[in-house]
């Protein structure tokens, strides 16, 4: 895993919705080492709450979304994002441990256990997409 620098233009924000604490912690650590602002969410509910309250400037540049989460699932979060015009173009990277019922129309789907370099590359690309 190489250390790559984040592009210029200040901190980019990543919303990380993942119910498993071990995964959440390690991904957060890696992203923070790369200079991202990470907003961790333990449930789909927390992710939605953040999206609902955050103003335009605090809006995340990329959403990393686990599908199987308690209380509100990743599917429900995805549904909500699609219905919000202001989040229309936000890149969504799906993390999942199951192989059936994959969502479509997302930036990428990563199957657990995934390669962290692949995730970092997708986030970099995603950030680029939002910028253009």
């Amino acid at each position, binding site marked *: *895993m190489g250390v790559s620098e984040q592009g210029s233009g200040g901190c980019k924000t990543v919303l990380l919705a993942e119910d*498993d604490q071990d995964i959440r912690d390690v991904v957060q650590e890696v992203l923070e080492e790369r200079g991202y602002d990470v907003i961790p969410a333990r449930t789909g509910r927390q992710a939605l709450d953040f999206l609902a309250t955050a103003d335009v400037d605090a809006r995340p540049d990329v959403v990393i979304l686990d599908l199987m989460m308690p209380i509100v699932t990743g599917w429900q979060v995805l549904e909500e994002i699609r219905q919000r015009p202001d989040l229309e173009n936000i890149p969504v990277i799906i993390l999942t441990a199951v192989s059936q019922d994959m969502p479509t129309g997302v930036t990428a789907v990563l199957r*657990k256990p995934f390669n962290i370099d692949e995730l970092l590359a997708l986030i970099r690309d995603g950030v680029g997409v939002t910028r253009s």
Partner: protein
Amino acid sequence: MDQPDDQPEDVVPILVVDDHDENLVAMRGILGRPGYRLVTARSGNEALKHVLKDDFAVILLDVLMPGMDGFETAGLIRTREASRHTPIIFLTAAGADLAMVERGYAVGAVDYLFKPLNAEMVRAKVGVFVDLFRKARQMRRQEELLRTAERDRNAAAIRESEALYEASFNGAAVGIAHVTSDGRWLRANPRFAQTIGYGPADLLNMHIADVVHPVDLTDDRVGLRRLFEGELDTYRREERYLHKDGHVVWVDQTVSPLRDASGKVKNLIFLIEDITNRRDAKKRERLLAGVSQLLLQSLDHPADMAGVAKLVVGSLGEWCVIGTIEGREGRERPTGKPAVAHADPRLAASADRLRSALAVSAAYAGSLTSRTTLTSLTANADLRAAWNVDGALLAELGVNVALSLPFVTHDRVLGRVTFLSAEAFGPGEVLTAHDVTQRIALALDNARLHREAEDAVRARDEFLSIASHELRTPLTPLRIQFQRMLDERGQLVVGRAERMQPILQRCERQVRRLETLIENLLDVSRITTGKMSLEVSEVDLGAVVRDVIFRFSRELAAAGCQLSLSLGDDGALVGRWDRLRMEQVVTNLVGNAIKYAPGKPIEITVSPGDAFGCTARLTIRDHGTGIPPSDLERIFQRFHRVVAASSISGLGLGLFIAKQIVDAHGGSISVESSGEGTQFVLDFPLRGTVEATPIPPDGGQKISMGSHPGPGPALLGLNDPGVWS
């Protein structure tokens, strides 16, 4: 001619007619000898009287007599049939003229004797006729004997033929009976009577309408009339006769006319053969094939009982009621409304009323779980008691008998079928009813097995999906941690030991997590194959609980759960248990409490389970949202998770494994739950079954855990390493 009885056979009567006594005396002198019986007459009239009474060998007749002379007398003798050929010898004076002699021959004389009589001549001539007479008489007698012998022979032949006829009639293997023109049974052979349950004599007071089914008799009417009118020679038909006890007997009936000497039809001969068995067998075959086909079509959903009921009516009674039950043993309830069918579509309204009445009858619901077979009950009284439905409704059905059989498979009652009929069920029908019932039972059992197999497959698929998810989750941070320790060339990132330590610690925790998961899977495999064993030693329940709680410190803190432990003050509760398995049980239950009730207090109590020191009790109570009542029954089953798979992680094996371990220790586990939380109560024996088994030489006491019925590891694929790759 019959001889008078007093006359010896060889004595020959001779009549002598003469008006002179001296001539008669002379004739006695000449002919008075043994073997001759001389009858004398003094006039023609007297002679005729004798001729009427007697048959003479020869008549000696004087020609010249006062009054009626010899010729006249001879003429009259000849007019009588019996004496037409009796030889007559005229007695006349010598020198009679030729004309007189000719006249004598003309009236039938055979000879003349001239007076004075020559004794020798008389004797010779008479002797000739006596001989003739004797011969003729002998011939007649022989003829008579021959005739008698022939008559006797004929009589014997007739008697023999009658006996033969009687024997064939009585011994015939077909039923034979004669019917008069007004429809009464004239005679019946034993087979005929026996076919319909009567003695041969019983039928003689009966009418054809008492025996032949009314519907068939109506159809027969034309045919029988045409037989009587001579338009038909035979009339053949398969029809129903009514047995004495009321059930229907099918016969192959052939009727033919019985004519008198003049050729006029007097009676009818009925020939019957009992074809009930043949007909029943054919009917049973057809019916059972239909039932099987119908039942096979509905294997994957509740069997089509309405279809079956509809199919059997008409063949097995007029009404059919089928009810099935569902639910666990002891808590069965009827599966919806019963299936009710009737052969006559016009009675659809009654069928609907009966269906509705049975659907709300507790007595009927209760009867569905009964194992009793009721054969030919008196429908109205018995059904009213068994079903507790309105008597008027039962009267509407128009049934007299019922046959009610339970479906039993694997010693479980699955429901009941009741056949109702106006007429009694024959033995063949009862057999068919049993067959139909058995096929329904088999179909229900097949459907149940099919359902269970489908459930098992679904549970396995779900389990594999969950297992895959659960195993991939700890692998994810593990992989990321390893990636963090290597650079893009695959070289170890050096000189950052202080950073490596937490990474490695995390890795170690992930590996332990994986180990626990795999251990749980293997436990299920061991339990289902009966290979899990207990290694017992002296174990303090309180100590086990304390150790487990200590290991949960970090999780409890992370979840914000306040845990309180009460060990009581009765001293340690020590039993002979498998310590690691006990820890596993407590770990599963505490882990569940943290998982399902985060941020809420958890209370654990260890105390004596009873006043006699026989059991130790462990109580674990959380204050979560509780378990829905519908799930409470099933939470100790494999792969059952209370919350949908998408929200809470876990294999759903913890409580199943916990219960198996508790059961293996001879203990018990129960659960109570409400909206304010869930409480598990576990009782372990302090002494008892576990003690009974001697400790094997390897030191540990091994107790095999009971094999669990249901899909084993082969079905789960737990033994197949490929599943997890």
